[in-house]
Structure formats: structure tokens, C-alpha cells
């Protein structure tokens, strides 16, 4: 068996406009052959920098890397594919660059085609492949020469759960041949599947070992309190509030129809009136959360939100959008009630972003109806905009402006008067705990603070409906839990929340979900209902999602 790759005390800093960033601050570890090592951490933890140093694309300022003999395969985040080349042309290019002769080539292509299942798509342009297929092709291009070490930088970003599962089994089979694999991810559920994890946080190694070794330290500290099915969403939020104030609680989160609690060591079992707490298996996320110094903040209560309509807050009837021949959204109908957190879940390219844009009034529908907060989007699009807030993926903000200036800008955009803006901004700065950052340029601030600011900006005008686009993908668990606690508080005050995501973990925070696939709603209901109906194996929402998609594909084969 080949040697692994070892590295010790790696340091690397970057000088950005905003100052010096310590991307790696004394990182050590190893990637051993025959196993999958997960490199786990939120965005900006230093994952990509570490991988690039290991691939010899960046030079560390200090520290050592011991590379084994043999080739190091590296798949960058965008897979390194030429989108204007076909599948075969991409493979041929990498074969030429690696100097494969005619014989080796044929064998290699045959092996890779078999391995990836890309054989029927040889003449398709890489740019026309789905996210999952691109990723397989990217992997195939890195495997043209069998590597001793395979470095994968966030291979599962933007890939639907079905393809993600296939990728896992492909990499598993590689691992059996004795390759050392490094798989970086921001998703903790994915990290749990690795044989070994290196948990990175702000350039430091927080943990290095088997996931089970970490979670078992937290045995007895995680609890689950099921909430009876007859309870409505608002009751669930009250329980979450009560739960987070129990003695010894580090974190309290709604997960489907249960409350999940992480307790400090030696804390008594949590108790809520009339409800029974049951011990839960600790997860990597719980452990990660408990290891960080900061705790999620409990948000202050939110004043009740005005109700602009008596009907549904969001209502779509046969909403359709075509782009030329292609129907991106195909007769979608659903209703969202006041104070509900509603999720649009689906793989990339399924049509959720198009639906979302139509509901925000950014894109006109081809046919069908859509009403948001009582306003018909066909006729009064501009009226609707004042009633809704929007937080974009990777939260858009003006990096050179201070936190307060960003808020003033948002207030101006949403048309608040100067005096109104002033009181709202003061209140928001206090509510979101941004006092010490108010006059700092926000480009410099940590991700968690930026996230808080982005949310504060999106709701500065107290909208009736809030749209969130993958709000917490790639953020650390403390930030994520705090964010969802705030969202729950707003929903409790009567704000209607609409979320799009392809990230299963985010779906668990929703009251109700619509699963969008190939432009249609293929499943709808609460996370519990969807799991009960479609998850035969009891593995969770992701399994339910996969089985829904697979059965839809079976019933509606694509031409």
C-alpha cells in the first residue's frame, strides 16, 4: 500500500484589502491511504488554502508537507472542466497532458466510462451536463492517471442528493484500491460519513480523528423532545424559546417535529411541561457546536408584524415560466400561510430559483397567477416589493461601507423615511448585537457577523414576507443555529418566510416543504410527513428526497 500524505505546522497568510487574513495557523495532520479523510469546516475556515498547499499550488510560509511518491490528483471546486468541450474532448485533453499513449488511453477511457457511467454522453458539451454529471466528469479527468492521493475540494457543492450518493460510492470504491482521499466539505452530515475528519475552524484544527470518537464524548448530552402532531407551528416556536432558556442548555433547535437540545456537561435532563425528553445520538454538528467558545445567542422577541391580507400570504396557481422551448417552471401551485416557514427544496436547475424570482417580482411569469401579501404580481409588481424582504445567497452587502451605512442603504432602498430609518437602525443594531461593529467596514468582519447584518438589512422595513436564498449553506453551526432562532422568532411574530435550498439540513428548519424537480412540485408537506411517506429506510429527509426523485424519474422518463 502506498504512503499517505503528511503535513505539519502549516502557516499561510493572505493580505487582502481588508487586512491580513491567517488562512492557516499551524495546521498539522495526515491523509492516510485506504480511507476517506474529511476536511470539514465552514466557508473561510482555510479548507481550500490547505488543499492548494497540499497540491503544491500555493507555498506555505512555514511548515512541512511530506508527499508520497506518485501522482497527486486534485479536483478544484469548479471541477476544472472546459464547458465548451465535450465529455470525450475533456478526457482526451487531460490524457494528452498526462502523456498517455494510445494503448493506455483506450483502457483508461474504458475504465473511466464504466466507472462514471458517462459513456452515453461522450459527445455532449461539458457545460450542458447536470451538476452531478459535471462532477463525475471532473473526477474522471483527475483520475486519468491513477493518483496516490486524491484531493477533492468541496465536490458535493451544487450537486443533487442522488448524484451526491453516487459520488460517495464511486469514491468509496477508489478508497478500496488504496488511494488516500481528502474530501473537503462544509456539510457536517457528509463529514459524518468519512472514516476520519480534520475539523478546521478559522485556520486551526479543532479536531483530528474518527467522527465517532468525537461524538461519543458528547454521549448523554443530547436530547430530543418530540412535539405532538396536533401542535401548530407557533406552539413549536414557543417550545423552542422555552427550551433554549432551560438551565444548562447550550443549544435548542427545531428539527422537524421535535426539539433537539445540547446540554453542558453534568447538566440535568431537560424538562418541559407535559413533554417527555428522550436521549438522542450525538451528531457531529452538536459536537462542533459544543467545542466552540461562542454560544448561539437567543434572539430578543420580535414585535408582531402587520398583516396586509386576509387570504394566503403567498399563493400560486399554475405558475409557469418558459425560456424559449424550455419550461423552467411548469404549472406550480401552492399556498403559504401567515407566520409559516416554507421551503422550496430541489436540485440545481430544478426550477426553484425561477419560482423564487417570480415571487420576488424579479421575473414575470409566462402564465398562471401569483399573489404575495395580497398583491397580484402580474399587475402590481412594484407594490409587492415594498412588502417583501430579500436576503441573497452569500448575502450581498457593500464591503467598504460600515454596518450602520449598509443598514441606512437598505432602509433607503426599501423607502423608509429618515426618522423612521434612524429608529429602526438603532433598534436593529441593538437586537442583532452589532453595537461594537456598527462603525466598522463590514468587509472586514467575521462571516457570522456579516450574516447577522445581512438579515438585519433584509428586514429593516419589517416586511410581511421574507425570502431567503440558501441562507445558511457554508456557515458554521453557531451562526446557523442563531440565524434560524431569529427566523423562528420572526415567524412567531407573524412574518411569512420562504426559503430555497438544495441543502437538506436547511429543509429541516421549515414548517412545510415543496420539493421541486424538473419544474414541477413532486412532493409537499411537513418534513415529518415527507419522511413518513417517502423514507422507507428511516435514514432521514435526504433518503426521502432521493426516493421521491427516483420514483418521479421512473414514472416520467426523460427523452
Amino acid at each position, binding site marked *: 500500500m502506498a504512503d499517505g500524505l503528511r503535513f505539519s505546522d502549516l502557516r499561510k497568510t493572505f493580505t487582502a484589502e481588508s487586512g491580513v487574513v491567517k488562512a492557516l495557523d499551524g495546521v498539522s495532520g495526515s491523509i492516510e491511504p485506504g480511507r476517506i479523510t474529511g476536511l470539514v469546516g465552514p466557508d473561510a475556515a482555510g479548507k481550500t488554502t490547505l488543499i*492548494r498547499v497540499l*497540491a*503544491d*499550488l*500555493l*507555498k506555505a510560509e512555514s511548515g512541512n508537507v511530506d508527499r508520497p511518491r506518485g501522482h*497527486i*490528483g*486534485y*479536483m*478544484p*471546486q*469548479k*471541477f*476544472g*472542466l*472546459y*464547458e*465548451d*468541450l465535450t465529455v470525450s*474532448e475533456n478526457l*482526451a*485533453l*487531460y*490524457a*494528452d*497532458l*498526462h*502523456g498517455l499513449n494510445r494503448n493506455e488511453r483506450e483502457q483508461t477511457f474504458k475504465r473511466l466510462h464504466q466507472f462514471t457511467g458517462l459513456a452515453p454522453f461522450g459527445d455532449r*458539451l461539458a457545460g450542458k451536463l447536470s451538476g452531478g454529471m459535471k462532477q463525475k466528469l471532473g473526477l474522471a*479527468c*483527475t483520475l486519468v492517471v491513477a493518483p496516490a492521493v486524491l484531493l477533492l475540494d468541496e465536490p458535493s457543492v451544487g450537486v443533487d442528493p442522488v448524484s451526491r450518493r453516487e459520488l460517495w460510492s464511486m469514491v468509496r470504491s477508489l478508497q478500496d484500491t488504496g488511494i488516500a482521499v481528502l474530501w473537503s466539505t462544509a456539510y457536517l452530515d457528509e463529514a459524518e460519513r468519512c472514516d476520519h475528519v480534520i475539523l478546521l475552524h478559522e485556520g486551526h484544527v479543532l479536531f483530528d480523528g474518527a467522527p465517532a470518537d468525537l461524538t461519543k464524548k458528547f454521549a448523554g448530552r443530547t436530547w430530543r423532545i418530540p412535539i405532538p402532531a396536533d401542535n401548530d407551528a407557533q406552539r413549536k416556536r414557543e417550545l423552542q424559546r422555552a427550551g433554549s432558556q432551560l438551565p444548562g442548555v447550550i443549544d435548542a433547535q427545531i428539527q422537524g417535529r421535535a426539539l433537539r437540545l445540547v446540554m453542558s456537561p453534568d447538566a440535568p435532563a431537560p424538562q418541559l411541561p407535559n413533554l417527555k425528553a428522550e436521549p438522542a445520538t450525538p451528531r457531529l454538528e452538536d459536537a462542533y457546536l459544543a467545542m466552540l467558545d461562542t454560544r448561539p445567542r437567543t434572539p430578543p422577541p420580535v414585535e408582531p408584524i402587520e398583516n396586509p391580507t386576509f387570504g394566503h400570504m403567498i399563493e400560486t396557481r399554475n405558475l409557469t415560466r418558459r425560456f424559449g422551448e424550455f419550461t423552467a417552471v411548469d404549472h406550480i401551485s401552492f399556498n403559504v400561510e401567515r407566520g409559516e416557514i416554507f421551503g422550496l427544496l430541489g436540485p440545481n436547475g430544478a426550477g426553484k430559483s425561477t419560482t423564487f424570482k417570480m415571487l420576488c417580482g424579479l421575473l414575470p411569469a409566462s402564465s398562471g397567477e401569483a399573489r404575495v401579501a395580497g398583491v397580484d404580481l402580474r399587475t402590481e409588481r412594484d407594490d409587492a416589493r415594498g412588502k417583501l424582504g430579500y436576503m441573497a445567497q452569500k448575502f450581498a452587502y457593500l464591503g467598504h461601507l460600515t454596518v450602520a451605512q449598509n443598514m441606512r442603504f437598505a432602509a433607503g432602498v426599501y423607502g423608509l423615511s429618515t426618522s423612521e430609518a434612524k429608529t429602526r437602525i438603532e433598534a436593529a443594531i441593538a437586537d442583532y448585537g452589532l453595537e461594537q461593529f456598527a462603525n466598522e467596514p463590514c468587509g472586514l468582519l467575521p462571516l457570522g457577523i456579516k450574516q447577522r447584518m445581512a438579515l438585519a438589512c433584509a428586514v429593516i422595513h419589517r416586511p410581511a414576507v421574507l425570502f431567503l436564498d440558501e441562507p445558511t449553506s457554508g456557515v458554521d453551526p453557531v451562526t446557523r443555529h442563531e440565524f434560524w432562532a431569529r427566523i423562528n422568532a420572526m415567524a412567531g411574530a407573524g412574518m411569512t418566510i420562504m426559503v430555497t435550498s438544495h441543502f437538506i439540513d436547511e429543509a429541516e428548519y421549515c414548517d412545510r416543504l415543496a420539493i421541486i424537480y424538473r419544474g414541477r412540485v413532486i412532493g409537499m408537506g411537513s418534513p415529518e410527513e415527507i419522511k413518513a411517506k417517502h423514507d422507507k429506510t428511516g435514514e432521514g429527509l435526504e433518503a426521502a428526497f432521493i426516493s421521491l426523485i427516483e420514483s418521479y424519474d421512473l414514472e416520467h422518463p426523460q427523452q
Partner: protein
Amino acid sequence: MTRAVDPQRLRGFLRKEWIQIRRDPSSIIVAVILPMIMLFLFGFGVSLDARNQPAAVVIETSAPEAQDFLASLRANKYIIPRLAPDRPTATEWLRSRKVMAIIVLGDDFGERLHRADSAPIQVLVNGTDANTARLVSGYIQGVWATWLVDRENVSPCSAPTPINVQFRVWFNEDLDSRRSIIPGLIAVIMTLIGALLTAMVVAREWERGTMEALLTTPLTRTELLLGKLIPYFCLGMAGMTVTVLFALTVFGLSIKGSILALVLASSLFMLVVLGIGLMASTITRNQFTASIIALTATMLPGMLLSGFIFDIRSMNKVIQTITYIVPARYFVDLLKTLFMAGDIWAAILPNMLALAVVAALFIGITARKTTRNLE
């Protein structure tokens, strides 16, 4: 250690570049169509000649020579005479830019013509457009001189012929500045085209994340540079060919020099401008910034400092010195020589040498800046 150039790797990389060019026709459009459009627009738009200029003619005399002179004004294609009833009307026309000049034949026209001691005609020219004004006054003088000569031939005892009036006409027989502009224009256009062609190509690899993947393969720096230069060199030369053919057919130019010299000069120049684009692309790693740099670094100096429109010898010393670092200067000179004068090697070789040096400089800098890692 891998070889600097491995035929299989280079071939594979070239094939990839060629497929990309074929699939995205924008570079073919930039190389072949854009120069033709630019040559067409500039060629017909930028003209240093003033044709069909209206001029008011005030005739206050009854002398028969006045009508005779008017007839020869009419016969001329540069001036369109318009008869004005009196001087105030003509002045009004000049003010409102209906005419570019006023020609006054006073009531003593006949008398002065015979006396020959003072100018028999008075010419007023609108000076707001200095260049056109100078040309118009030149044309009028020309017509006057020709008329005088003709008249002298008819009646040989009259006034002496002014000898210096024919000066301008002598230099540029059909008064067509296009012939001298087009070769320079080709040089300026090809500067822009060449730099634009390569400005995107390296930056695109960075932006799309493919450079990262390339860097983990054995592809060498030399192969990368050759792989980028060879295809765009071919495209650029194709554009050059089309542009020259366009100039020969549409503008009726002819090449006095040899094709070999033209190909040699163009090749050297193409390497210079491709080098500029490649350098911008390699250093900025951003397609937008690189193309802006390529545009400003080539177009502006190409227009102003290459001697294409403005004669370098009439610039001040400092600016003259600066023009030596403008590669288009050498190519403008080369093309003017090859199109209008022929293979004058004494004029051609120093320019070619200068281009070779500049090409080596830009490509050398690009090679130095081409790293094998992401730093």
C-alpha cells in the same frame, strides 16, 4: 524533470484551443470581421480631404473674365460655387455655415487683373475648422492658378503666373489622403485586434477555474505560452490578410513592396500585439481588466503617437521620444513604406528589428509572469 515542449502535450493543448475557437466564434469575429468593419468606417470616415465644399461667390464686376473664372470654379470637384447677390448675404451664409468660404470678385476685378500688382480676388474662409479652412483656401488658390495659366496660354501678354500655388497638388496628385491613411490605419486596427485576441485567453482559464486544474498536470510554461500564441497568431494573420485584401479591392490600393516583406513585417508585429494581450491577461487574471488594458494600451497610442494621422516630426521632442516605445509606430512606418514606396530595406530593417525587440520583451515578461502555482 519534464521536457520544456512535449509534442503530445502541445498537440493536445492546441487541439483544445482550436476547438474552443471554433465553438465560440467571437474570436473569429474579432479577428476577421471587426478589422473589416473598422477599416470600412475609418477608411471612409477619416478623410483629410475636403471635397464638395460650398463657397459663396459675389460678382460685383461686369468684366467677362469673371464669368470665365466662375465657370472654372464650377468645373472643379472640391468647390461648389453658389452665387450670392451681395456681400452681406454671403457673410450671412458664412456665419450660418451654409458655405465654407466667400470669393469676392470686386468691381475693379478686370482692372486689377490687367494691372497685376495686387490681388484681383478676395477670399474669406471660415476658420473654425482649421484643417478644412486650410484645404479650402488651397483649393481656391489652385483653381485660381490653373485659371491664370489657362488664360495666359490664350493671351500670352498678361500677368505673371504665381509659381508656389501648385505646391500642394504636386505632392499628392489627386489630392487623395486615403492612400496614405489606409496603410497606417491597417497598422492601428491590427494593434487593437491582436491585443484583444489574446487579452481574454489566459484570464479566461483563471476565471473559469481551469488554470488550477492545468497547473496540476505536467503542462510546462513554454507549452502553455506556445499553446496560446500559435492559434491566435494564425487567426491574427488571417485577419491581416483579409484586411489587406479589403484595402486592395475596396480602396483600390496597391502594394509596391514584396509580399514576403509584408508577411515578415506583419508576423513580427502580430507577435508584439499578441504579446501585449497575453501579458495583460497573465498579469490581471481577469478578462474584463485585461481587455480594458489591451484596449487603452494599443488603441490610444496607436491613434495618436504612431504617426498614422499626426506626423511624428511635428511633435515636440518629449512626445517624439515617447513614440519610440509605441510599437505601432514601427508598423505604420513599415506599411507606409511597403504600400507606397516599395522594398526599401534601409527603411524596413531598422523597423523590423525594433519590432523583434519589443516582441521579445512582451513575451519574455509574460513568460516570467506565467507561474506554475497560484501565488
